[in-house]
Every structure is written in C-alpha cells, then in structure tokens.
C-alpha cells in the first residue's frame, strides 16, 4: 500500500474518480495550468484537459451555482473554493439552492465542494476559518472532515458518489504534515465516526486537524487511558458512536478549531446532554477557539487556536473530577 500525504490522497481520490467516471469534472480558481493554490490539482490539466479541469473566473457564487446546474443534468462536479473562507461568497447558492432542491422538488444535487480550511500558519482572518458550522445549520447539506490520508481519499470518493451536496472540509494544516498508507484504486469511506485510539478513562471528541492535537495531547497523559473519537462526518453526525464512547468512559472533552459558539462540538455536547446524561461522570468540557476572528501574528493565533497543552489541561481537570 503506498504512503501518501493527506494532500496527495485528496489528489489521488479525484484522479481515480475522474479516470473511472467521465461525469466527474473539476471547477475552481487557478486549478488548471497552475494546479491550484495548494497544488492539489497539479498535473490534472495534462491528463484530463481543460474541459474537465475548468479554470473559472473569480466568482464563488458562479462556481457553486454552475456546479448545481451541471449536477442536475447528470454530471458530478467537484468545485474547489480556493480557501474555505471564500465560501461566504457562495453561501446563498449552497444554502438556498443546493440544500433545499431535493426536499422541495425531488431533484438531487450531486455536487462536492472542497473547502481548504483551518489555521495554524498565519493565514489571518480570511485564510484560516472553519466555516462548517454555518452549513450544519442549513438543512440538506452533508459535511465531512477527514483527519487522515486514508479517510481523505475514501471520504472524497464517497462524497463524489453521494447524490447529495457534500462539503468536504480539507484541513490545510494537514496537507503535507500528515502521511499514511492509502489503498490503491477507489474505495468509499462511510460518513460515520472512527475511533482514532481506544481508551477507557476519558473520551476526546474531535475532527480534522484537532484529531491530531487530541492524539498528541493524550498519548502520554499521566498513564490515563484516553479514547479519541474522530467524527469524520458532521452531517450526518454519528450519534451512536458518540454515545457508545460516552457509555464506555463517562468523561468527555470536545475540541473545536472553529469559533466556539454553535460549533460542531456544541451540537455534540447537546446530544450528550440529552441522551448520554446518565452515563456521565463529570461535566462535558469543551476546548474551542474563542469567538474572535483568527488573528495573523503567530503568538496571537496560537493564543486562540486549541493547543496540545490546552487539551491536556482540560483532560487532567476532568480526570480529577
């Protein structure tokens, strides 16, 4: 099995799907000759041509809207937002058209929108956001957020094949930092949670880059046995996996790299409060980015994004409860 970076696994997923299915094509800004701002589509135009690797004008609403139009005609577009932050300009088409069309008219919208997201490298307020919760609140959109190379490939292939609109949150800080074994060919990863590490004393729930923060923070935590649950999918949210882990450990820390109010982790905490209350042995703790824009300067950015030490501190506090 080849070893790939998270970024290479995303490229591999698209390459394999485009080879296997001529309905699949790409659209986005600077994805053609330039190969994308992060080089995810490097070389694609040579293999698939400009028709299937479509450079678009700087117009996110058009990218999403035209992807929807192509999808209802039977194509399977993968649209790239150059940075997830820019999805705000395509928000209306996603929320009001893509998300509601099947419910209203029985017309399915098979689009995948790739959202390079997250901070940690001085991207500043407009190149570091984690906008997934905006869309969790909008009915009709599926949202996945892989943390490993293997899941990045499998979840992206599943997203492309899913007849519904799927937002694929790919964390920029994992692109070249994370490597792993990735199966060859095409395979689908289900939109369910995954146990990243088994444990019995406490559960840390996270997704995307924060899974790695959770694993690092709890690899050696005073001998405690810490389970790390990688959500992988935010819509649908794997309620059963969450509650199963709560039943096992009775203590939960939830991490969000997104701003804390109404973040994905807030919904996880609400599910546990409603359905896992009697399994708890302590308050549900959250470690999240405070409700401020993501600042540019390294000490400021580190001060807001959840760090390994923040997670260790929360876990220790709860273990001692």
């Amino acid at each position, binding site marked *: 099995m080849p070893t790939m970076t998270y970024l290479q696994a995303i490229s591999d997923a698209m390459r394999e799907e485009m080879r296997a299915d001529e309905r699949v*094509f790409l659209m986005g800004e600077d994805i053609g000759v330039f190969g994308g701002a992060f080089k995810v589509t490097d070389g694609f135009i040579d293999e698939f041509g400009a*028709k*299937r690797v479509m450079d*678009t*004008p700087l*117009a996110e*609403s*058009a990218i*999403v*809207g*035209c*992807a*929807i*139009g*192509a*999808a*209802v*005609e*039977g*194509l399977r577009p993968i649209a790239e937002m150059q940075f997830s932050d820019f999805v705000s300009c395509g928000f*209306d*088409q996603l929320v*009001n*058209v893509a998300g*509601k*069309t*099947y*419910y*209203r*008219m*029985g*017309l*399915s919208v*098979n689009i995948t929108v790739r959202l390079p997201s997250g901070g940690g490298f001085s991207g500043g307020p407009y190149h570091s956001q984690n906008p997934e919760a905006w869309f969790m609140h909008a*009915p*009709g959109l*599926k949202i996945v957020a892989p943390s490993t190379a293997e899941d990045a490939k499998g979840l992206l292939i599943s997203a492309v094949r899913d*007849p*519904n609109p799927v937002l694929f949150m790919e964390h920029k800080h994992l692109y070249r930092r994370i490597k792993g074994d990735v199966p060859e060919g095409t395979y689908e990863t289900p939109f369910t949670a995954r146990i990243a590490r088994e444990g019995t004393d406490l559960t840390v729930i996270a997704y995307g880059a924060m899974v790695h923060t959770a694993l690092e923070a709890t690899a050696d935590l005073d001998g405690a046995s810490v389970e790390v649950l990688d959500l992988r999918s935010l819509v649908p949210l794997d309620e059963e996996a969450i509650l199963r882990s709560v039943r096992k450990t009775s203590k939960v820390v939830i991490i969000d790299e997104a701003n804390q109010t109404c973040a994905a982790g807030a919904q996880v905490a609400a599910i546990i409060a409603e359905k896992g209350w009697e399994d708890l042995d302590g308050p549900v703790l959250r470690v999240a980015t405070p409700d401020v824009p993501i600042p540019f300067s390294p000490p400021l950015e580190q001060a807001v994004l959840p760090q390994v030490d923040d997670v260790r501190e929360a876990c220790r506090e709860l273990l001692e409860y």
Partner: protein
Amino acid sequence: MATETAASPLPDVSQHLTTDDRSGLLRAMLTMRGIEERAMTLYRQGKVPGSFYDGFGQEAVSAGATWAMAAEDRLCILHRDLAAHIIRGVEPWRIFAQYMGRADGITRGRDGNVHFGDRTKGCVGMVSMLPDMMLIATGMAMAFKLRGEQRCALTWFGDGSTSRGDFHEAMNWAGVQKLPVIFVLENNQYAYSTPVDQQFAVNPIERAAAYGFPGVSVDGNDPEAMFEATRVARERAISGGGPTLIEAVTMRMHGHAAHDDMKYVPTEKVEEWRRKDPIERQEKRLEALGVDTTAIREEVKALIEQSVERALQSPMPDGNTVTDGLFADEPSLLEDGNAPWSGFKGA
C-alpha cells in the same frame, strides 16, 4: 424611459408558426390567466395559504419563449411565468394543488405558490433569492457544452435581478465560455414597488455587449415576438454561438403579491398597458386567420373548473412526513418536457 416602448427588430408575426402553434400560444396564455384568476379566488376564500403572486398581463413572456424550446432543453422558471409549466406539460390540477399546499402539488406542500419546477418536464423551480437561477441555467449549459450536446438552457429573471451579483457572475461566465444559454430579462417596470429608473442608470440590455454577446429588446406582450426572439437565440446557442440576453418589455399589471394595492403605479400607466393585453392581441390575430377563439376559451374554462375540483380532492400532506426526503438515496435528475412547436415535429 426607453424600456417602456420596445422597438422590436423582429417581424410582428413569426414566419415559423403554424395556425396550430398560434392557437397553442393562445391556449397556454388563457390557461395561465384562467388558473391565476381562479387561484386568486381560492386565495380570497382562504384555500391558498401564504400569499399569492400572478403574472397577469405578462403571459406572452413565458408562453412565447417556452414554445421555442425543445424537449431536451431545460428551463429555470420565475414566478410570473406559469405558461412555461403549462406548455412543458404540468397538469393544471397539480398547479392548483401546489397553490393550496396539497399532497399532489409539485412540491407536495413543501414550497408554496409558483415556487415549483417539475423535474420530469425538464424544469427547475425558482428560489426567492433572485436571480440565483441564472447560475443554475448557466451550469446546465456548461454541462451541455462539456458533453458536446446541441441543447440549450433558458431562464427568466426580473428587472430588479439585474442589480444583484449573480446576474453579473452568470452573464460573465456564460460569455467567457460561450455557453448555450438564453437569459430572458422580464422587464415588468417594477421590482415590488421600485421602478426601473431607480433600479439601473442604463438599460441592462446594453450590458450584454460588455459580456460579449447580443442583447435584444422584444415586445414582451406579443407571444410571437417572444417566440421568434427565443427561436433565434436557441439556434445561436445550439450551434455554438453562445448566449443571448432577451429583454421582454412588459408590465406587471397586478401588485407584487395579493396584498399589494400598487398605489405607487400611476393609473394611466396601467390603463396604457391594458390596451396592449397579450391575450387580446393574439385572439385578434387568430380571428383574422378564421380561428374560433371562443371555442378555445370554452375549452380552457372547462379544463380549469375540472382541475380545481380535482385539486380540492387532493389531501393535505401528512405532518409525519415532514422530515422525510431531505437527502436523496439515489440520483433523481431532470427529464425531458413537452415541446409542442411544429418546428420540432419530425425533427
């Protein structure tokens, strides 16, 4: 201003229409008006929830344009374009059921009034954020071009829509890619209460050239002029010539919705446009050709009464189903609609 009196370069009477086509256009417009008038009564009787929007006086815009569209073409339809649904083959009783929020409405009660599109007829229903559908039509055209198909997408939008960014994004992308798409700007003089001279400084038809494709102003109260302009635009689109912007110059004869008394519109203006009624004009044309238009009127009237009765029998949707069908298990895509124009017969 200039947009009120369209100087159409097109012939008054299209040479591509048979008498049957002309009668079909009249039938579609009469059906639209009949359904909307009857639905307004149902609204006043409390049988139509929410509000009610109609296209009284604008029937020619959707009837004429849709008549030029082939079965495999696609339409994104606006709320004053009921004739488009009718021509594509949506049965009037289902339209009444739609208005009344019944289980047999096109959206099964999930969306209201003219917010619907029958996917099995190649139609996509509008959303309230205008003109979002310009981009959907542009995307469909992109699919046709990608697959090398000789097909075309058409969408309608109003004068107010030309102020929003999606108008620009769609016009620009369609122009850059020379996509087979027809943009029909339905200029009915008012966006809710805002007149066109407060909406734009320059008529948007003049913007078409800036995006690299032609713009043509048409008498939107003449179904045959609308047909002819659309036919030409479609020919251009499917032969690789790219998009066309058609301005259908018309007038919104009723308020924005049922609650709107239109006090902001001068009475003389309404009177002036009443004399240009598209249905009366098409009737005169047909009478000159010896067609019995009274028979068509009677036929439509009977259809509407049967349709109302049938729609009233349709059950209200079951509240227990409200969370069903948010996500699709299988793809469910657009299919071809009716295309009654004689020019497609035997094609």
